[in-house]
């Protein structure tokens, strides 16, 4: 079901030769001393497994500064998304914000087998780790891309059941629900339960969210239509504290590139700081 890759034995980051989400060049370089590769324990259904995580930034500043927790998409593992983590580590200046990324169970070096429920649990494990480092909810920015919009909406909409509640949250290329994925492909109004055994419903979960919300979506997203997915999610958020960034020509993965990395980061920075 999940499009993971757990064939790697280590995270190579800049030295990774496989496919990557973006090529951000050397402008967004991150020094090795700021890269912290972690294994975070996660207990789910009476079993404890280790979740691989990468934190970029000064660990000592987690207790005092704002941190972005990035929930990546469905492809491969953290090496694939490493360029995005570097981008966010340069948001508003180098290491202005610490950035935590995890691999969901079964992805990369994370143990376990991926399911919808333990994907949420793994994000909570990351939040617990941040909390033990001194992070408080008001300084948490939760950022989900594609598949990662599912745990982001889940946490934002059910904040009291998670270790931390986001002070703000960002969805890039969100999908509305399993039903929409199926119905877009089938043309008919058939239930997702005919085809999938996950019940992700971001458009429903986001109705319960109260934190300010930024939506970024490529208008040419060839995988998750901005109309049937993004607009539905954005429209379902019930409060006025929402901001939309539509990216003309942006496809599913390349929105930061199409916007221009500087413009992309500026949009996010404006949302976080204003």
């Amino acid at each position: 079901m999940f499009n993971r890759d757990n064939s790697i034995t280590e995270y190579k980051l800049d030295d990774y030769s496989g496919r990557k989400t973006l090529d951000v060049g050397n402008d967004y370089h991150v020094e090795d001393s700021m890269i912290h590769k972690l294994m975070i324990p996660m207990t789910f259904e009476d079993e404890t497994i280790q979740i691989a995580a990468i934190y970029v930034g000064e660990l000592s500043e987690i207790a005092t500064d704002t941190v972005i927790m990035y929930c990546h998409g469905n492809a491969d593992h953290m090496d694939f998304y490493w360029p995005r983590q570097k981008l966010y580590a340069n948001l508003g200046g180098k290491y202005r914000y610490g950035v935590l990324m995890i691999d969901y169970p079964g992805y990369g070096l994370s143990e376990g087998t991926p399911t919808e429920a333990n994907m949420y649990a793994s994000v909570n494990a990351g939040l617990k780790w941040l909390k033990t480092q001194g992070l408080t909810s008001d300084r948490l920015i939760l950022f989900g891309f594609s598949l990662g919009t599912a745990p982001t909406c889940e946490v934002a909409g059910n904040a009291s059941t998670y270790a931390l509640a986001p002070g703000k949250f960002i969805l890039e290329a969100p999908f509305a629900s399993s039903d929409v994925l199926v119905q877009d492909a089938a043309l008919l109004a058939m239930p997702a339960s005919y085809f999938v055994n996950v019940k992700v419903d971001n458009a429903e979960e986001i109705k319960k969210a109260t934190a300010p919300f930024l939506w970024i979506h490529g208008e040419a997203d060839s995988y998750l239509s901005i109309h049937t997915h993004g607009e539905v999610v954005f429209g379902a958020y019930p409060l006025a504290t929402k901001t939309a960034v539509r990216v003309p020509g942006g496809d599913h993965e390349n929105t930061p590139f199409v916007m221009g990395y500087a413009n992309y980061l500026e949009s996010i920075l404006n949302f976080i700081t204003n």
Partner: protein
Amino acid sequence: MKHLFFLALIGLIVSCAPTRFVKPLEHKQHALTGSFGGALTNVPGVAVIPIPHSSLGYGYGLKKNTTVYGSWYTTAAVFGVFQMDAGMTQSIWKDSANRMGVTVSPGVNFMVDVFEHNARVWPQLDANYYFDYKKWTKEKSNGLSKNKSNSFYVGFTNWFELQSTRAHGVDQKNHIIFSPQIGHLFERNKWNFTLEVKFLAPYASNKDIVVDYVSPFGSKGALGTFFGCTYKL
């Protein structure tokens, strides 16, 4: 995110079977049917493959020009979905030489899953024109003869969506899913074999979705390929 939710069955469900009966069975004739095939999809790292719908069915020649039938979808069953269709094939015109004709097949499709017990019904209407370009009788040594024919056919399938809204209260815009088709029928004494190509919803965009359909019309519709067989009892 790509392919997170991709299961073998997802896709244009209107692509799940070929025409059940292009021609009616003989009066009071029983037949067993089987089919395999579906919309062609590009599965990255694998190949371009048809979505592997399969079904088993039964037909009966209710009258000289009327056959009733029903089918159960076996691939769907593997994924916890009970799917069946039922309908009738009615001959509405034949030429005097009995070499060509037109049939219509109204029917209904029903699906329910074992997980959430979601049930749906879709009416269906097929129509086909067939032409026997080769027809012959083979005499056997025991004095019996076997009638054989090869036929081309062309027609269309319509599925009708009765729901007015789709997920999240969004208007359901596609209420008729129209798909033209061409096929070839090998009609033998005991067996019939059908090869069919459907141009599935050739007017509808196939972009911005989780399934990578293959279509001769580029960003519109999908191409479906099917094999069907009938064993006459």
